């Protein structure tokens, strides 16, 4: 694994405090630790905690340990665990909820996934549709990681040569296509 601490790294919040984890703990309270999720997970080999272990930590309310873990960022939303869970628990949805909480807390070991997701969503707000080249450029700029773009350089050249991507001038100061929709979402979410 190639995890590097390059983002916000402070983890805070006591493990006993009631909070955002409660509805999640409720969703997996029926988990009987059979491990079918782990056995079904395509990416379990790369996780620090397996999915089964993660659910146990959620049941125990071990917030610090959960958000120090990289497990939920490794989920590629294949829904295999959800399909096969003998308790019928919404595991993939719950992983997504953990990502949201981690994102809101701003506490994670590696900032790659959070920066990618937020850059992606920001591209939607700006243009309505994702402009792949613009999005990836902004992603690398925000990542501030000296080596990451190099890993994609040869692919980028291949894609440019094939005319699959084209450099587009980013609209730097224009009004976002979906500003209104995004504003309303934020309003409603801050109310609840």
């Amino acid at each position, binding site marked *: 694994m190639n995890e590097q601490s390059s983002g916000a790294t402070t983890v805070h919040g006591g493990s006993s405090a009631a909070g955002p984890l409660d509805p999640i703990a409720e969703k997996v309270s029926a988990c009987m630790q059979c491990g079918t999720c782990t056995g079904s997970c395509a*990416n379990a080999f790369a996780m620090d905690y397996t999915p089964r272990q993660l659910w146990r930590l959620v049941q125990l309310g071990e917030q610090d340990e959960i958000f120090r873990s990289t497990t939920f960022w490794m989920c*590629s939303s294949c829904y295999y665990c959800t399909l096969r869970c003998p308790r019928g628990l919404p595991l993939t949805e719950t992983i997504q909820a953990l990502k*949201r909480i981690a994102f809101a807390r701003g506490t994670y070991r590696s900032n*790659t996934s959070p920066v990618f997701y937020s850059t992606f969503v920001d591209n939607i707000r700006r243009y309505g549709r994702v402009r792949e*080249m613009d999005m990836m450029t902004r992603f690398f700029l925000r990542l501030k990681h000296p080596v990451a773009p190099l890993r994609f350089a040869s692919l980028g050249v291949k894609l440019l040569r094939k005319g699959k991507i084209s450099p587009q001038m980013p609209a730097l100061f224009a009004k976002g296509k979906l500003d209104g929709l995004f504003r309303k979402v934020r309003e409603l979410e801050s109310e609840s």
Partner: protein
Amino acid sequence: MKYLYYPGCSLEGTASEYDASVRAVMHSLGAELAEIEDWTCCGASAGDAISYLLSLALPARNLAIAEKQSPRTDVLVPCNACYLNLKRVDDHMNRGADIREKIDVVLAEENLRYGGGIKVRHLLDVLVRDFGPESIAANVKNKLSGMRIVPYYGCQFARPYSDADDPQFPVSMEPLIRALGAEVYPWTMGAKCCGAGLMTTKSEVALKLVANLLDGAGEADCILTICPMCQMNLDSRQDKASRLLGKDMSKSVLYVTQLMGIAFGLSDEELMLKKNLAVTAGFHAKLRSASSRA
């Protein structure tokens, strides 16, 4: 038959050959596609990682436009992730009045309202169920005799919503491949994950999945895909997968509609075959021998 068409962002960029071949093949089959006017991104998997409400409001916006543009018309979606996101709107709206009301409030900002009940269909489901192997076979001009094809479905075509196929071992593409005169190359990895967005954020993890898939395709002449993300991952990392496994992992990876178009006698330009990163010389040779046999 008329469909509202939701291409999705990738089909305007890195998957433009998918868009071109979908339009060309659907035209050959006599289907009418009307693009959803002013459609916007479905949110992909990023939307839900940031905001639950946003992850539903974004696809709901497109369904609301679809409903207004042409009521009771199925929405045709060629991308697995777009398909899942558009489909999950109705599922989640039916979970409670609270989320329904919130989606209404957000869409009102765009002067839209989504009443629910729009049928969202994956391209493959439409090809197999609405047209079927017989009408596909009737359009075949060049039988793909002797070609061995592995059908690759990816995850979100049949998971979590398995309306279109079996969620563990999907089979939809098999009669379609046979209708083109080709053989289905046996494998069991059709619904295994390609790593999806992890190819960007955790590339070493996704690369392992891709290498396993390419390896699993064995002696097949071509991997057939139905999703721009799967296609990109399988198509573009073959050099790295080869280095990882220490053997040549070159494999032709085509969109389902590109292979159909070849069999239908459409030109390489119409199907944008040059846009694919991996179409091997062996594949072209096999195509030539198939057409000389026909």
